């Protein structure tokens, strides 16, 4: 039973790492920071220290072997693979020899030598530029903790020991612990650190455990056994929820179950509204391996293949062949359906180390997007060549990020022509023409969209940046984040102008920002004439299922009314009124903001 202690309601926002809703008492896992004193031993004790080390090694190995047997998940399971790799580290003769030698030569306490040797390795991995290799540091530290617990005779607190239904709260979850994750024991995970590529994220997703990571110091405010509400999709954690939170949670949980039933099977159906208005549902992907889950989720194409992942993980610029292979994988998976590849949207201080970008006072207004591509033609050309070669394998289109003037589009087109020309001269087959589009995400691109539309094959509205640049609001800035709203009439007018100019030139407009997957934003996009929505693969079935239950024609009038509103409050009012005839769309105010959710009624029949 949770202790009846009156704590203050706290709302924490982190990264949604694994979707799902959960409620449960907090169990805080303390990562054991054992103090290991530097202690020299006498010559006579050296032998005993070495034996102590070997015994600890044997026990640690046996412990992992038992864990693997108990979990019985087989070698294809990612959790089992983590444990197997730790077992191998404990069997590493070279490493063991290094430790034994140090004990002998320096006459040093075994625990101290183990800590020093393994932490030095962990620091080495942390210093690597590639995130894949950097994350090995967590494995080494995990092995170190396990060995020390045997050397010092202390058992670590583990995920496997928390009572069923707990929300596990930790600074971070050691990799071997993630193997023991299962939905019955662990209702949700909440961590201070972690990235979307860390073990904990991957394992939480594969086991269906909701997770919010990267909450920072804020996790320290969570009292043991306090009730937590976790929303793994929105990255939200509510500590000591009040009655209204709990009611909201129960309602959402029930409606999520109904949504799941309603959308089951929608994967095979086309994106179409109740009155026949066709809205194509596309997926945003970040890595080639996202393609098949997107296809399985019912995506009718790839609306946005971000290519930055190459640069996040790499120590140097990814070679043409590696890029081509990745693009081809996606193009082939979607066999003839559109695959829009966005050229590298780099810039800002994030990539400074890799690309040698000088520090900028204002990175969002700096050398990023197409500006970066054009400033680095040697990199841009390699990427274009890879895309053009992949275009032989499917319906590949090129999307240029953050174009803010016509000259950039023309310069990029010249590079594309040049890349194609070079390839042909080398005897490499490339399609006679590849569709080229621009992201509409700056006010200047919106204002010049009539001119741009005459020289491109399609537009893609990047709502996240468009909102930020149009409203001059950095949504990461807590003090003004409230001003960031897709429903601001200025944003709607920018989208309206873009769509009308696209229609005049008869080119399609897609939308690929968060607005395309969020209510009520996506309905206004449709009302304004957008007919392609590109969303995270996870959201494809949901958005498709929702659209199949709503009529599209009505949204035009609603969007027109919203364009005439004076501010976002008025837009929200009109949206609530306009959509009030659809009881499935639920509006309520939470934490000072209106939100809109799809809540199909209990016992509501299937579609049509």
């Amino acid at each position: 039973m949770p202790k009846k202690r009156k704590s203050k309601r706290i709302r924490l926002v982190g990264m949604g790492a694994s979707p799902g809703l959960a409620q449960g008492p907090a169990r805080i896992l303390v990562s054991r920071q054992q103090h290991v004193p530097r202690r020299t031993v006498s010559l006579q004790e050296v032998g005993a220290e070495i034996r102590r080390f070997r015994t600890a090694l044997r026990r640690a190995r046996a412990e992992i072997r038992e864990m693997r047997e108990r979990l019985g998940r087989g070698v294809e399971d990612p959790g089992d693979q983590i444990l197997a790799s730790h077992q191998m580290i404990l069997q590493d003769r070279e490493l063991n020899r290094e430790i034994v030698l140090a004990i002998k030569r320096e006459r040093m306490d075994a625990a101290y030598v183990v800590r020093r040797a393994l932490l030095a390795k962990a620091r080495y991995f942390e210093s690597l530029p590639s995130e894949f290799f950097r994350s090995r540091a967590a494995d080494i530290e995990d092995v170190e903790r396990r060995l020390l617990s045997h050397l010092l005779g202390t058992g670590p607190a583990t995920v496997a020991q928390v009572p069923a239904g707990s929300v596990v709260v930790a600074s971070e979850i050691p990799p071997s612990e993630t193997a023991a994750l299962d939905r019955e024991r662990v209702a949700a995970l909440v961590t201070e650190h972690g990235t979307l590529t860390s073990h904990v994220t991957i394992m939480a997703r594969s086991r269906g455990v909701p997770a919010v990571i990267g909450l920072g110091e804020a996790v320290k405010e969570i009292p043991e056994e306090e009730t937590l509400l976790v929303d793994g999709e929105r990255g939200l954690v509510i500590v000591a929820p009040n009655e209204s939170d709990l009611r909201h949670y129960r309602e959402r949980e029930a409606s999520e179950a109904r949504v799941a039933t309603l959308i089951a099977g929608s994967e095979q159906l086309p994106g179409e509204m109740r009155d026949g208005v066709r809205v194509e549902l596309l997926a945003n992907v970040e890595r080639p391996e996202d393609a098949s889950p997107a296809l399985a989720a019912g995506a009718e194409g790839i609306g946005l293949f971000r290519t930055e992942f190459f640069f996040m993980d790499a120590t140097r610029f990814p070679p043409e062949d590696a890029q081509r292979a990745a693009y081809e994988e996606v193009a082939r998976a979607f066999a003839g359906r559109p695959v829009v590849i966005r050229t590298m949207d780099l810039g800002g201080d994030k990539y400074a180390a890799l690309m040698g970008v000088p520090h900028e006072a204002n990175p969002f207004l700096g050398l990023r997007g197409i500006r970066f591509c054009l400033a680095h033609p040697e990199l841009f050309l390699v990427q274009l060549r890879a895309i053009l070669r992949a275009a032989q394998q499917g319906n590949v289109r090129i999307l240029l990020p953050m174009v803010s003037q016509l000259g950039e589009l023309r310069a990029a087109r010249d590079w594309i022509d040049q890349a194609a020309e070079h390839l042909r001269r080398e005897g490499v087959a490339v399609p006679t023409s590849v569709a080229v589009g621009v992201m509409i995400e700056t006010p200047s691109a919106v204002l010049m969209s009539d001119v741009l539309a005459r020289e491109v094959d399609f537009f893609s509205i990047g709502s996240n940046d468009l909102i930020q640049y149009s409203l001059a609001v950095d949504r990461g800035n807590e003090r003004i984040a409230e001003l960031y709203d897709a429903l601001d009439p200025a944003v709607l007018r920018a989208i309206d102008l873009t769509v009308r100019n696209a229609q005049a030139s008869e080119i399609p407009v897609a939308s690929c920002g968060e607005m395309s997957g969020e209510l009520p934003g996506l309905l206004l996009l449709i009302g304004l004439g957008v007919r392609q929505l590109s969303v995270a693969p996870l959201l494809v079935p949901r958005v498709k299922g929702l659209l199949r239950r709503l009529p599209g024609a009505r949204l035009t009038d609603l969007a027109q009314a919203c364009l005439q509103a004076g501010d976002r409050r008025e837009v929200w009012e009109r949206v609530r009124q306009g959509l009030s005839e659809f009881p499935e769309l639920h509006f309520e105010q939470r934490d000072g903001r209106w939100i809109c959710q799809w809540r199909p009624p209990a016992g509501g029949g299937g579609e049509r």
Partner: protein
Amino acid sequence: MYEARVEVRNDPGIHARPAAILVQTASRFSSEIHVATEALEVNAKSIMGVMMLAAETGTLLTIRAQGSDERAAVEALVRLIEARFEIEA
């Protein structure tokens, strides 16, 4: 002594699982086997060493072996790396 060079082809490189496969393969031979990048040379039978290479896609590796089965060992590892770790070596 026998040696050969080979380029890492699998994506994103020799991280945890491929490293384990490489070490298991190397351990089947009696020769001393080393793998080197431009920056680092490690024992091919040590998982820690192989992970520390941090060999990404496109990295050029030199594999050296010394012993009775040196040639077979180097060839097996080259085949494995060329096949992106997708074969039983």
